[in-house]
């Protein structure tokens, strides 16, 4: 009874904690509330009468906490997508193991609904585990970030999925077969790998969100198997959160979830029909000229993209913005929802560089500002500022909401080279009359810009 009530309090704390995430000012306390809820749930479970021995539990708690703490302390902010992927994976893995143990514990007399919950838990948990690890590997570039495709890929995956369903059904109907359960787990792990492999690196924000949702659902199904409401409520919360983020990401790319998962976007560079670079030349600009342009502007909007994360340039961006603000320039930051490799990635990097959050503008809020802005400074962003998304129906990204950078009086694009972005699409922005290219590593160029500005 006390244990059950503690679970209820824990679940309530989770909800209250998530509610405090509605503002950056209260968010940190919200996270603490969630952690307090978790602590309460763990303590309540430890006094459960079923627990006979604490020695192994303590070993597990110690190892897991130590590993988690080290990961959390040492991970770079730019590597946050991988980190979340790995954490997702472990959540799914834990659900699978708990469900499998529950199966082994009850060889006979297991009600049908518990059996179904166990099978679903194993399925979703294992797919989450292996899928998340592959996604993290792609993000860390241990595995190629390109979409990996081969003939009959979808057919093979569909057959595998049907096989898993059949085996799961057989397990439910038959008596006790631990060996088959193991086979089921292995097949589900394989399915997780095969489902994520054909998805390109630029689509990872969607994949990570979706796996986030799965890890919640895996927890909820485990809750059904154990008849534990704390797991069901928490799992439902996380499941809802992941689904909402997934939808936001898909909308921000103007693509359906099915297209992201099965579309193999970014498998090979796309040849775009219609107006592209034909005969047009992108004009470059020297660091000194760019410094003059920025230094004498009244307003500047910085548009960061994955390139900023790759070259770890967030601190240099802040430094440049400080210099500009000291000269009386108004500086804002425009954040596209899918800039980077996970939802909200850019905001975290800029916050790390000590940029005050009221200066971070969401797309809808900042787009009307561009036409009143002197300079838009694009740092390592490409597809999210490509005007073809508005104007060229033949473009693969047509219809995707973009930042209207091209409407600023002038645009400076910092980029390594003229290579197209992840989607492999040429960017019309680069050839506009009011656009100048500043080639080079973003961090390097920003440093030089700062020096030039100081000399002015």
């Amino acid at each position, binding site marked *: 009874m006390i244990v059950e009530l503690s679970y209820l309090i824990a679940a309530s704390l989770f909800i209250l904690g998530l509610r405090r995430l509605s503002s*950056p000012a209260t968010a940190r306390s919200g996270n603490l509330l969630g952690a307090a809820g978790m602590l309460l749930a763990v303590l309540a479970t430890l006094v459960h009468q079923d627990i006979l021995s604490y020695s192994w539990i303590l070993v597990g708690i110690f190892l897991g906490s130590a590993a988690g703490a080290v990961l959390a*302390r040492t991970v770079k902010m730019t590597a946050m997508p991988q980190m979340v992927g790995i954490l997702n994976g472990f959540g799914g893995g834990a659900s699978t193991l708990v469900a499998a143990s529950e199966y082994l514990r009850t060889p006979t007399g297991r009600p049908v609904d518990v059996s179904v919950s166990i099978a679903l838990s194993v399925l979703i948990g294992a797919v989450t585990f292996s899928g998340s690890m592959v996604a993290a590997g792609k993000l860390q570039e241990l595995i190629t970030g390109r979409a990996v495709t081969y003939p009959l890929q979808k057919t093979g995956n569909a057959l595998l999925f049907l096989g898993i369903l059949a085996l799961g059904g057989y397990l439910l109907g038959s008596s006790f077969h631990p060996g088959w359960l193991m086979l089921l787990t292995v097949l589900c792990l394989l399915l997780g790998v095969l489902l994520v492999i054909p998805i390109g690196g630029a689509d990872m924000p969607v994949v990570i969100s979706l796996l*986030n949702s799965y890890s919640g659902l895996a927890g909820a199904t485990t809750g059904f198997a154990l008849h534990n409401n704390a797991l069901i409520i928490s799992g439902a919360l996380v499941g809802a959160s992941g689904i909402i983020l997934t939808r936001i990401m898909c909308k921000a790319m103007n693509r359906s979830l099915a297209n992201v998962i099965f579309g193999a976007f970014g498998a090979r560079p796309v040849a775009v029909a219609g107006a592209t670079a034909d005969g047009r030349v992108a004009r470059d600009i020297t660091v000194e000229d760019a410094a003059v342009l920025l230094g004498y502007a009244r307003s500047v909007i910085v548009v960061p993209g994955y390139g900023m994360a790759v070259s770890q340039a967030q601190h240099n961006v802040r430094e440049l913005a400080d210099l500009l603000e000291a000269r009386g320039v108004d500086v804002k930051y425009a954040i596209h929802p899918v800039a980077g490799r996970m939802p909200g990635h850019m905001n975290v990097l800029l916050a790390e560089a000590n940029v005050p959050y009221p200066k971070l503008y969401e797309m809808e809020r900042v787009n009307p500002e561009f036409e009143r802005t002197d300079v838009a400074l694009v740092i390592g962003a490409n597809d999210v500022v490509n005007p073809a998304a508005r104007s060229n129906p033949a473009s693969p990204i047509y219809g995707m909401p973009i930042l209207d950078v091209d409407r600023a009086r002038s645009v400076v694009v910092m980029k390594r080279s003229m290579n197209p972005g992840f989607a492999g699409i040429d960017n019309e922005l680069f050839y506009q009359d009011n656009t100048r290219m500043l080639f080079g590593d973003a961090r390097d160029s920003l440093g030089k810009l700062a020096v030039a500005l100081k000399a002015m």
Partner: protein
Amino acid sequence: MPEALLVSIYVFVLALFVGVEVITKVPQILHTPLMSGSNAISGITIVGALLIAGRVESPLSVVLGVFAVVQAMINVVGGFLVTDRMLQMFKKKQDGGPA
């Protein structure tokens, strides 16, 4: 349908609605901490893992249980700590010092 299952389904569906209500109010700027924080919450599976590791029914169940506890604890501790690390960086005004 067994009554326990029915109650569980009630709880699940109602919690989904609560989740949607609460999560849609989280601004885009906090979406990364939302993911890592909600992730930590999904580590609630630790509850099930503890029971399995603590019941000591067979060597196999202990092994599975301990592995589950380790994974769930990484999820919980890593998730809450990294979320806290991110959230403490979000400041309204610049405080001068390097981050």
